[in-house]
């Protein structure tokens, strides 16, 4: 009994010694590699991990002079206020609605575009279309938003000029809540579809040409080739990107929505991220909006993990 205790303790201390010896040995052997990591990890610790602790103010009554740690605990009070707040319920509805529309419209659009671009045999025309549809991706949402304001201007924008030319009444697009979400969806379609098609075009380029030759010999027409050769060739990419999209479901485009929204359409235009900015930073209700942010983050994390699990089940590479 006694001897075993003694031998036990020497064994652990021996193991501990070898552990530390090993540690020091590694630290010295790979000192240059660890040295390289110092600045990056200082960055990660300050700007990525430390703010995670800051989330605890969601459970506190945050007071500037007491700081994050000194402020008094309030439990789930902010969460209760949040879920009793009709404004936040509206924000949640808008977020989910925009997210669903983006999934339904902006996800399949680049696939269709890639399939059609792939049918173009005339190289110059193909390059022309690609060049034109990629351009808007490089412009910021500020510039694109300003262009939308101009184009949709109620008095003399091109859209209303056309509307008036057909003898219809001009529409103040940016002042009617009903138009906001369609504007968001259509503008992301116009701005990003071309760019998003690149990955599909690249995948199509890797499909074995003999598959097409064999299908043509079997008498397949254009649509049959698309349906039975190209689409199956894209299946892996489509599913992988779809799962990623599910994982980032709640990221509906902070910058785009922030730039396009105004007070007249807030009813349909306010989403979680813009709500956190407006109420949190502008009105300095830090603790309350941190609760909203924490909720958003947790839902996002669960979705990402579920999506990853789903990917692995389907034998896809997964997100990580």
């Amino acid at each position, binding site marked *: 009994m006694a001897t075993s205790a003694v031998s036990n303790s020497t064994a652990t201390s021996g193991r501990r010694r070898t552990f530390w010896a090993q540690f020091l040995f590694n630290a010295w052997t790979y000192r240059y590699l660890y040295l390289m*990591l110092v600045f990056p990890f200082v960055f990660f610790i300050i700007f990525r991990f430390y703010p995670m602790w800051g989330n605890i103010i969601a459970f506190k009554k945050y007071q500037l002079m007491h700081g994050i740690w000194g402020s008094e605990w309030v439990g789930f009070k902010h969460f209760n206020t949040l879920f009793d707040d009709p404004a936040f319920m509206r924000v949640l509805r808008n977020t989910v609605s925009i997210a669903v529309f983006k999934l339904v419209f902006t996800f399949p659009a680049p696939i269709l575009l890639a399939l059609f671009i792939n049918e173009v045999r005339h190289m110059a025309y193909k390059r022309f279309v690609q060049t034109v549809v990629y351009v808007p991706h490089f412009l910021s949402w500020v510039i694109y938003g300003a262009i939308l304001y101009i184009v949709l201007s109620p008095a003399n924008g091109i859209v209303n000029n056309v509307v008036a030319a057909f003898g219809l009444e001009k529409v103040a697009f940016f002042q009617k809540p009903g138009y906001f979400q369609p504007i968001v969806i259509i503008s992301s379609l116009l701005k990003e579809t071309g760019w998003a098609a690149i990955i599909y075009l690249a995948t199509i380029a890797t499909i074995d040409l003999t598959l097409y030759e064999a299908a043509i010999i079997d008498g397949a027409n254009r649509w049959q080739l698309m349906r039975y050769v190209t689409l199956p060739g894209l299946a892996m990419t489509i599913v992988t990107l779809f799962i990623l999209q599910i994982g980032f479901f709640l990221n509906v485009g902070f910058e785009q929505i922030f730039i396009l929204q105004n007070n007249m359409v807030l009813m349909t235009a306010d989403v979680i991220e813009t709500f956190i900015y407006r109420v949190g930073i502008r009105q300095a209700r830090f603790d309350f909006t941190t609760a909203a942010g924490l909720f958003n983050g947790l839902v996002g994390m669960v979705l990402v993990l579920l999506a990853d699990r789903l990917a692995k089940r389907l034998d896809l590479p997964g997100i990580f």
Partner: protein
Amino acid sequence: MVASSNFRFRLESVLIYLGLGIFAFIAVTPFLHTIARSFSAEAPILRGEVYIWPVGFSFDAYERLIIGGTFWLAYRNSFLITTSATLVQMIMTILCAYPLSRTYLPGRNILMTLIVFQMIFPPSLIPFYLTVREVGLIDSWGSLIWPYAINTFNMIVLKSYFQALPRELEESAIIDGANDFKVLIYIMLPLSVPVLLTLTLFYVVANWNLFLPAIFFINDGNKQPLQVILRDMIWSMQLATQTASADDFERLAGMEALKASSVIIAAIPMLVAYPFFQRFFIKGILLGAIKG
């Protein structure tokens, strides 16, 4: 039979070409309209006569903007922010990616787990904002650089690239007495020029288009980047045209053309760089498709 299916094929081709043409046209019309307005006289714009070709050709709006000079400040700020931020980001991304690409490095798995964790659970806005404030970066360009020093996605792309380079290169250099810094600088980086260039461009575009961080962290109007200055200009002009009465006409003269030309002036650098970017970005997006 053959003739008719051939005809059908032709017809379908025409429809596909036409459909793509229409999509491209709709995507590009907003730009053409804005360009047309910026070169038009004010009266035809207000009467709604301008579509995608200038009416009553005029350079006035550009003249006013160039003489006005607001854009020089905006360009200068954005140029300085973009160059310094990109430099910091490239150095930090390389320093992070290289050690993590050495699969033999003890502790590498723990570090990778931490990095993946902060990727799926990114800091939410308020704690992030409070952190930047605590560090004392509010109202300085540092707030647009340091909190964004590493884009994890770009870092993982670079890490995978380094990982795919043959181990023997490193080993022979170590045997010849080089340390890891020398291996990185004299062997790994020269072999990674294409991917480094692509990542630099990714960072440059993101920094040049940077908007939200400046809205969060910068209050001083003289320090704002191009995007924020442009938005403020457009908004104040928008407000002026909406609230103006008839006798304000003098003050509002040329406002519509001015709005359009500000947008065009702000867009020019990206449009000029676009043909160059297009080539490297397409390579870059494909690099990103290789799993880490």
